[in-house]
């Protein structure tokens, strides 16, 4: 049996992080400019669209930073946006599509990631790559690339 305080801290932290892990599928508010990492002009529209769909709950700060460190794209927001949007054609689609369609597509991408084994361990949570990229985009000190 490990010390009571350790148990309490561990369980509390686990549940807090868990709430953050689900935040992307519970979007409730848009994001202000202060939360947005700098990206190149070509990616800005898609970036803003992604953020507006997912929201930017404050509590995901540490998870977002951890996602950023875990991703192959590293610190580069442009690369992350590009990785989510994919081809030029899909890039254009993300700019044109309405919020509901973007959300639906992101959910589908996340499920496909899980099915294909494209997962990343972040702070113990097993996240889809797309999901981790979305988290990472919320980290405000990200490099423009």
């Amino acid at each position: 049996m490990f010390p009571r305080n350790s148990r309490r801290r561990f369980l509390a932290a686990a549940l807090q992080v868990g709430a953050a892990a689900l935040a992307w599928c519970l979007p409730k508010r848009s994001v202000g400019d202060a939360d947005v990492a700098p990206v190149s002009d070509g990616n800005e529209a898609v970036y803003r669209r992604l953020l507006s769909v997912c929201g930017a709950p404050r509590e995901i700060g540490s998870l977002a930073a951890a996602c950023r460190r875990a991703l192959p794209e590293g610190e580069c927001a442009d690369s992350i946006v590009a990785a989510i949007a994919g081809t030029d054609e899909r890039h254009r689609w993300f700019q044109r599509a309405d919020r509901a369609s973007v959300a639906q597509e992101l959910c589908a991408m996340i499920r496909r990631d899980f099915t294909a084994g494209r997962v990343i361990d972040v702070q113990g949570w097993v996240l889809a790559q797309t999901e981790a990229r979305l988290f990472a985009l919320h980290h405000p000190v990200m490099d423009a690339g």
Partner: protein
Amino acid sequence: MLGDAREVPDGSVLDTDVCIVGAGPAGITIARELTMSSPSVDVTLLESGGLSFDASAQALNRGYNEGFPYYPLEITRLRFFGGTTNHWDGLCGPFDTIDFEPRDWIADSGWPLRRADLEPFYVRAHELAQIGRFDYEPDGWEVDGKRRLPFDPERIVTGMLQSSPPTRFGTVYREAIEQSANVRALLFANVVEIVAAPDRAQIESVRVATLDGPRFTVRARQFVLAAGTIENARLLLASTAVQSSGLGNEHDLVGRYFAEHIVAPGAIFLPSDPSYELGIYNWRSRSLTIRPSDGAVGVAYLWPTERIQREERLSDVRALIEPITEPLALVASSDALTSLRWLAERELPYRYDREAWQPEDLDFATNLSRIIGGLDELAIFGYRNFFQSTSDFRGHNIVFSIEQAPNPDSRVTLTDERDAFGLPRVKLDWRLNEQDKHTYTRFARILAAEFGAAGVGRLKMISDHPLLGWPATSAGARGGWHQMGTTRMSDDPRTGVVDADCRVHGISNLYIASSSVYPSVGSVNPTLTIIALSLRLSDHLRAIFG
């Protein structure tokens, strides 16, 4: 009839057809079967303890642990009529088909039996364990919105365990033994040696001793060891008069391959829908689900399909789910609650009760002070447990039950220290290996991907946590109180102690009825299979006597 070995004249010799050593679920099952089906067969059932807990008898189980952390040996098995069913939880299920098969990714795996060979005995075992009909399909339990999770059935399926009341064999079947004309059960009768003929081809007798009382001999035509995984090995290893390495031990197998079900916290499950209820998966004793058609009580688990087990090279493993919240999880493992259980316990002394077990001896004052110090936790626990539904709980704990891979280095040996009868005490060296760890870590990730793909929620891995993960601590991976494997079954005497009939290789009249014969141990609780094998052995013995 039920008698007291302390009243048997010292030095006497009792003759019988079948001598059964140990009155746990295996021994009582065989005695009961022979009572009902073969009244002309004379049976002597020897039980080390009495009708209730006796500390001096229990102390005979004392032994030593090394290797992976394990419970004190004197508390894991009970020495009185009914054996360990006196404190079992009652969860039951048959082993899976794949558990009986040799798997090329698990060394020494596989039985010389198939699941189909045991099927009719599983059906009969259900009656003895007082559980519902032999049907483990979840459909019957899926009522009132309690549905199985929507996973890819090619990868993860939902299975069911059924719950015995739990049946205390010594209580429920005592009358049948007492009133039997052909079964003589002797309490306080400790077998201290198995005596083989000089050619080692058969057993002639067992020597029996009582604490501070008479010693006598039981001669029989057939002998059945049903004393449990550790004691069976101990008796064979200690019977060295005609074979210095111990009976049945020509190939140095007796005591090896000790196995447990590795119970480990696998992950924290956070549902996508915060109002999600576990339903049929709710693994809290007072929340198990009832099957309307026959009242069977059950709980669902998640299991990797045979395909996934093969592809991922997993041992058998299943995941049970229980609701947690921070305060509930906290107090469920709190010192205060443990001490409260200790104070409240009436049935067994606390050291032998599984729920109230403590790793150290604490006196009354210490327990009381722990309760007073944790009154706030107890209040929360009481409120949540008795007045609040689990519907607002957001987090769930996923617990794995893992098949330990056969491991010859995981073993029971004898020490130089002796018990009250001069019998060597045992040392358990429980060891796990990389296959066990691989199953633990890999299955957690497979499950996490399935939860994500199904949109059910996310899992946080426990496996890497320094306090909860691998290797074990008292809060992390541990034994499931299921001891198995020390007299394993094989057609080949070089790889097994008993054959497919549970007969010790090379000895014509010595059988073993116990989970000690399991060569692969599955991940389901072992008692139903113990009963099924005992019923099968009963039929075999009946055929011998015609």
